[in-house]
């Protein structure tokens, strides 16, 4: 949104060749239907509630008590009419006083318990949401770059906002509805049976068609809600894409076309949304019909029996009062099913996301890097028979062997699609090789835990993303515990100090707020400062100077020559100016190294690099 935001970064190893990745129509990623293992949704819900068993129990107890107190009302009415009235006539005020006191106690208890319940339930629900949000977030962060390239940010946002929101609705309202409904059913049925077995029995019988209705609704609504969840995710994706690309949208007058496209997606959501509401309407009508028929039948039969004298008038009165209440919660059951279906659809999607195993898994038994061999901070990098290809085939690196001794600066050049970026990403462990190993001082990258890995290897890419927060915070991403002087020193060394000082609040300028506009080149400098602060053994620069002007690039090179001295560096650059500081140059072509040597040696030769270098020198003329 701001000048500091990059486009949804969809960079992929530079790769011009076909078949690298086919967005086939059957791809679950395109349809937004990741496979959810059977039972995963329920397991997810269980695992969210299990740690809060005690609280859930207390909350349920509170609700049980509350319902018990509330349901005592009609009982007291029946008692008042059948007992208190005759007693009062006989000048015995005791029963009436008892009824009054009882009712008052019930009223107070009902209110107090309701308070306690709502507060307790909110606690459970908020804890669960906190847990779930955190899980989605952490899991998404743990998933590989490769996953993010396919899943799109919009969907991930949709998972952690609208989908979490629907679980919240279930927990906030739904759970209370369900417990209330079940309790009223059980409690009132028991009361009815206790008042009169026959009347109670008829009421019980009416549950059979109601159950069938509920099942039917559940089946139909489930389908609709799943469609709705997908539809809203599509809306969100389009929304985010437009807002993040607002400049080209405006400059190329995309507004009208976008309106149409968005309208279509929005309309699809509108349809499914309406479908969901209609399902609910059908359910409510059906269940009310059954309920009201049952009431009429029970009253008819009860009245007959009162007329026969086999049923007391007070009992009928109480039973009728209870009956109305018995069916009251049907609507609320509908509301529960509503939130349940919607939450189930969302949870299913979340479970599908959580079921994605990181394609770059954390090691089971992490290893430590060996202590540094010399006083230099660099480490040796070895590509040992590494192969890499994308899922749909098309190998980018056929078989790749390379040893970079500790402390060496290697420049990798080659045309677009030669596999340079793939090399960088394998070394940064954004991907794992499909065969072979990448070793850092003899340790396979796959055996290193993240903190250890990042002490070893850090990568600076072309797209220098800035996060909300101050410039200092953005640099401190390199090392969160860095002191202010260290941050400023890193900025100075890379030549970013001047422009940062000129910002309205210097290092404390919020990059998303007033006056915080930072140009692409400046952003790359901030990214460098980060890398400098991170102080890694191996630094990878992937087109990291593309937006810098020449003095900026020189400053970076000077910094690298001094600050990064002794570190191992892999520099990927289109500009051959970078090569001047390299100890060694690799020229890649179709995933293979075709030339390898010192810069001067290659320039003097007749190979591709000599050609490239000549072309570059000419361009400077």
């Amino acid at each position, binding site marked *: 949104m701001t000048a500091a935001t990059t486009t949804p970064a969809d960079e992929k190893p530079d790769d011009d060749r076909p078949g690298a990745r086919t967005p086939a129509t059957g791809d679950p990623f395109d349809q937004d239907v990741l496979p959810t293992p059977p039972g995963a949704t329920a397991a997810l819900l269980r695992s969210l509630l299990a740690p809060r068993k005690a609280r859930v129990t207390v909350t349920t107890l509170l609700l049980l008590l509350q319902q018990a107190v509330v349901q005592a009302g009609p009982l007291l009415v029946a008692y008042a009419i059948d007992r208190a009235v005759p007693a009062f006539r006989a000048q015995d005020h005791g029963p009436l006083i008892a009824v009054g006191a009882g009712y008052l106690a019930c009223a107070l208890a009902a209110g107090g318990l309701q308070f306690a319940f709502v507060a307790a339930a909110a606690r459970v629900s908020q804890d669960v949401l*906190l847990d779930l949000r955190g899980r989605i977030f952490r899991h998404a962060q743990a998933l590989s770059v490769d996953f*993010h390239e396919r899943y799109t940010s919009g969907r991930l946002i949709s998972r952690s906002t609208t989908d979490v929101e629907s679980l919240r609705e279930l927990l906030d309202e739904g759970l209370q509805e369900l417990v209330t409904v079940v309790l009223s059913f059980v409690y009132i049925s028991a009361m009815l049976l206790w008042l009169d077995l026959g009347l109670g029995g008829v009421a019980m019988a009416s549950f059979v068609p109601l159950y069938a209705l509920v099942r039917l609704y559940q089946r139909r609504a489930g389908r609709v809600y799943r469609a709705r969840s997908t539809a809203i995710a599509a809306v969100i994706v389009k929304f985010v894409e437009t807002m993040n690309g607002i400049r080209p949208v405006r400059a190329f007058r995309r507004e009208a076309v976008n309106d149409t496209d968005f309208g279509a997606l929005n309309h699809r959501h509108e349809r499914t949304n309406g479908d969901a*509401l209609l399902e609910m309407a059908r359910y409510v009508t059906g269940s009310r019909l059954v309920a009201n028929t049952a009431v009429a039948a029970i009253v008819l039969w009860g009245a007959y029996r009162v007329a026969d004298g086999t049923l007391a008038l007070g009992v009928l009165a109480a039973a009728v009062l209870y009956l109305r209440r018995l069916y009251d919660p049907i609507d609320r059951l509908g509301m529960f099913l509503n939130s349940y279906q919607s939450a189930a659809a969302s949870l299913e999607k979340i479970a599908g996301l959580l079921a994605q195993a990181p394609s770059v898994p954390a090691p089971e038994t992490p290893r430590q890097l060996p202590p540094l061999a010399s006083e230099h901070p660099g480490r040796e990098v070895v590509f040992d028979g590494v192969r890499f290809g994308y899922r749909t085939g098309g190998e980018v690196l056929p078989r790749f062997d390379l040893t970079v001794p500790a402390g060496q600066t290697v420049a990798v050049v080659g045309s677009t699609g030669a596999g340079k970026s793939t090399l960088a990403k394998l070394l940064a462990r954004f991907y794992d090789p499909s065969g072979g190993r990448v070793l850092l001082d003899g340790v396979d990258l796959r055996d290193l835990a993240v903190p250890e890995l990042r002490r070893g290897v850090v990568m600076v890419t072309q797209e220098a993303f800035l996060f909300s927060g101050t410039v200092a915070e953005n640099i401190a991403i390199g090392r969160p515990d860095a002191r202010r002087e260290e941050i400023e020193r890193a900025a100075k060394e890379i030549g970013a100090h001047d422009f940062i000082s000129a910002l309205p609040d210097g290092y404390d300028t919020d990059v998303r707020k007033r006056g915080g506009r930072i140009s692409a080149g400046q952003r790359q400098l901030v990214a460098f400062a980060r890398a400098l602060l991170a102080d890694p053994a191996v630094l990878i620069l992937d087109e990291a100077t593309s937006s810098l002007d020449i003095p900026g690039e020189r400053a970076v090179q000077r910094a690298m020559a001094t600050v990064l001295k002794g570190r191992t560096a892999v520099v990927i650059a289109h500009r051959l100016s970078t090569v001047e500081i390299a100890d060694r140059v690799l020229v890649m072509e179709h995933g293979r190294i075709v030339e390898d040597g010192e810069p001067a040696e290659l320039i003097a030769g007749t190979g591709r690099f000599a050609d490239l270098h000549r072309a570059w020198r000419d361009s400077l003329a």
Partner: protein
Amino acid sequence: MRTLLRLWPYVRPVRARLFSAAFVAILASCVGLVIPLVLKWLVDGPVADHDPGGVWLGALFLLLLGFTEALLFGLRRWLVARPLSHVEASMRAALYRHLQRLPVAFHDRWASGQLLSRGTTDLMLLRQFLAFPLTFLLVNGVTILVGVVIMLLQDWTLGLVVLGPAVPLMVTCVIFEKRYAKVARLAQDQVGDLTTVVEESVLGIRVIKGFGRHRSQARAFRELSGTLRGTELRKARLLATIWGVIVTLPEVAIGAALVVGVAQVADGALSAGTLVAFLSTALALRWPVESIGFLLAMSQEAATATERYFEVMDEGVEDPGAAAAAPNAEDEGLRFDNVRFRYPDAPPGSAPVLDGVTLHIRPGESMALVGATGSGKTTLTALIPRLYELTSGRITLDGVDIAALSREALRTKVAVAFEEPTLFSAGVGDNVLMGTDGTAGERELERALSVAQADFVHALPQGTQTRVGEQGLSLSGGQRQRLALARAVVGQPEFLVLDDPLSALDVHTEAAVEAALRQVLADTTALIVAHRPSTVLLADRVALLSGGRITAVGTHQELLRSNAEYAHLMSGEQSGEQSGEQSGQEEGAR
């Protein structure tokens, strides 16, 4: 709460449905209230009189009412199902439309997460509000009123007893509403912040991964979501309190009525049937009364959502610009005339980014724009298609002030290739052709692709139909940059603005693009932001931007010789002290 009235324009188209639904709901509730009366009549009449015929009649009547009630319930929902989805969708479409037309400066200020939470969560709240609280506040209000009247008619003393807590209840509700409003707003804003963090953590995933910072990122997220939880719990406590009050007070009143009623029945002043009916009515009112608490809460949240929605909708969109453009005075190219610019949200008193830029690019000429990192080159390019408004001065295209052109016309004349090549979720071909008004066909596409050396698209799985962008094949930075370039040249615009168009290309591709681009530039008026000599050489002349002004204009060779700052920028060598602004070349800046 008054803000809710602002929803009217969106609700208006479906008002007939919505009002009939409310009417139907009232009807259904009234039917529900009549049922206890029938019960009373049954108990007092046929049952007491042992009249089987009357019992049948009563039960039949009960059944009829039951059916009516059920059908009315269903009818209400059916009436609003589609219209309400439509209201939500149309509000979302309006928001999207509006956001697309807000000044770019607005988007600089607003994180898309905040915008998105308005377009999703807030609108869902509004739909729910229209579906339930709005109708049911009305319905329950009427139900309570009718119920009270029925109770008063049955026995006015008992009725008054039940009415007792009405005033304290209302007072509590008003207090509650005020407090809840504040917390609800806070919570919704925090959701927006959380959305922003999620979004950034995805967009910046490479940085996070590259530095192994997912832990600290997760910590930041945890803190924010922890704050949100705190706010939500505060909200819940308020809600719990109002629930407690709303449940207790009416129950107490009913209890009192029961005691008084029983005494009256015992005295013979009241029939048992009347008492049953009365209590039945009172109990039937319990739900409408209790529900007021959460209905108010929902309304409050809806009011906040409305506020948030209109916060964005009230922002003024860019005016489309004068429709009738003045006729071309003369063919005189692109001219900046004492252009000053400071970002509209810049702190007052800060130096403007551009402070008197004067530059003339002759028709058909291409001008390179060179300047140090952060000197305002990109800002200057954004002014030409009016992505930002000038603070003062003017820019003319062939003698016509860009402010006198409609934005549509202006942006048709000017094509831009941005520094960040953004592709949209669409086919490669569509992405390129969006530079035209659908007038260009296969030929133009081919031409543009070959100029940008983007023939790689033919090797993609579905050729030019291959989807790219957020939801498609991801391309490398260099590939995207070439497509953005193709997009800029495809419409053969009169004016071309290229912002560092070759930065991500390797040397060979760059050379090939340059060769092809030269042909395009031969007869196009162009401004090219350049960082390196190779790009500068595409242009006929070079302008040096420094300290917010154009300090030198000339050919590359001229400036290399005569301007120390330029030489420094182009070679990186520290050629003496930097001369900065006063380079003695100002006469070149016409």
